[in-house]
């Protein structure tokens, strides 16, 4: 170890070269308490002259480092002498706040369907078969099934996204009238189904309800 008097200001205060002003102040308070005249630990270890020398050294170190301008100069000298790493210097940069929650994930969810929806809309409008079906006055479950297979979307995906039970969706596509829910619910399910496939909700609901009415 280097003798006390040969140590640089950072070593004297026992801090790292990138210490913040707050850390410097704390370090100075700590060493001052250890070396001051009243200290039970050090008063009998040093002579009066030695203590005065140490205290003045520590004060010099503190004053040089606590003032940003003189600190930059001192750092430059240490770097020139090769005693300090340029990257180890203190920079008064605010630290980036660390997010507690991962908000990005939520954004991702919101933006992803958008792209999918635009793409889907285009495919619906380009597809002649789908447009043909939608032009009909009456729509059956088989028609809906056909639209869905044209778009190549599995039923599970719709059930997962719309939260409509897959059995119910299957019943609609299979025209299984016995398992249909009351008309109010059925309309809601149809709307969700149509919205997910990006086809006109009102066309689907009206066409389908009309078809049920005929079936009865």
């Amino acid at each position, binding site marked *: *170890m280097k*003798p*006390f008097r040969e140590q640089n200001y950072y070593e004297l205060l026992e801090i790292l070269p990138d210490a913040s002003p707050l850390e410097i102040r704390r370090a100075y308070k700590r060493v001052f308490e*250890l070396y001051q005249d009243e200290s039970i630990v*050090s008063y*009998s*270890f040093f002579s009066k002259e030695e203590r005065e020398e140490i205290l003045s050294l520590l004060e010099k170190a503190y004053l040089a480092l606590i003032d940003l301008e003189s600190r930059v100069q001192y750092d430059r000298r240490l770097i020139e002498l090769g005693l300090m790493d340029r990257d180890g210097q203190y920079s008064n940069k605010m630290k980036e706040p660390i997010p507690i929650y991962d908000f990005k994930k939520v954004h991702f969810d919101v933006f992803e369907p958008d792209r999918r929806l635009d793409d889907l809309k285009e495919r619906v409008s380009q597809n002649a078969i789908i447009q043909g079906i939608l032009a009909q006055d009456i729509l059956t479950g088989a028609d809906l099934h056909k639209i869905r297979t044209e778009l190549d979307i599995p039923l599970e995906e719709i059930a997962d996204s719309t939260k409509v039970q897959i059995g119910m969706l299957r019943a609609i596509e299979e025209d299984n009238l016995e398992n249909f829910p009351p008309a109010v619910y059925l309309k809601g399910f149809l709307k969700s189904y149509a919205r997910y496939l990006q086809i006109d909700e009102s066309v689907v609901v009206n066409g389908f309800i009309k078809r049920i009415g005929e079936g009865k």
Partner: protein
Amino acid sequence: MPNIWSIGGGKGGSGKSFITGNLGILLAKGGYKTLLVDLDLGAANLHTIIGLPLPEKSISDFLNKKVGTLQETVEPTPVPNLYLISGAMNNLDIANLAHEQKLKIIRNIPKLPYDYILLDLGAGTSFNTIDFFMISALGIFVTTPEPTSIENIYRLIRSVYFRKIRQVLSSHNFRTLAEEAQERDARATVSNPDILLYIMKELDPEKGEILENELRTFNFKLALNQLRKQDNPNIGALICKIIQRHLALKMHFLGNISFDERVHNAVCKKMPFLDLYPYTQTTLDLRTCHKNLLTIDEAEPILQNAVD
């Protein structure tokens, strides 16, 4: 070779014999064959601390050639695995040991067949005490958190340290180099060992390294005894820090040992404190010190490598 620990403290009444006795009991209970040597010649009373009635044999039997070897003065104690060479029942002039007799003790202690040997030293910094202390490079210093005691600790450490430097300087013919160093920097005397060492290393790196290595063999511990509730519990660690920083010595803190009124009772009853009051803070502290003594000792080489 046994592990030898010198226990010193400068000031009288700081608890050297108390700590020696109780650490010895803990080592013995841990299964180590342990020997306590009462080297507080002229004021020996380690036997009372460990609950041994007045011993019949003592170290002066060996010095007077009543017995042939130091081993013959060893007394068993009530604690299994624990043995004692007492300094009681000595001649009245034992405190003023002749040089020849002192050397006889110093030469023979390391030859004794034990796992651990604890040397209980007297107060003060007389040559006898310092030379006995230097039987081993491993030392435990005992102090109380009072200025008087701390002052004496520094005196003792400096005395041991300076004596070692002088020994190395004269045995290696470093005198001229030391004088040269002092010419270059007036402060580079034996009383500022860190500066002396630094300048000697600059003048002659090879010789400076020899001195540094010799001083590095010292392995000191500090126990802070009789810590009362109102005392600053950091004093011990700070003392170690000052010594490490300004004397470039290895100094580790073993721990605080709480003050307890009942230590007085244990001494009066002539019973070991550990056995009489096993469930007290002070006993707990002694156990912590014992644990730290063993673990720090073993951890040393690993730490050394990590730093290098």
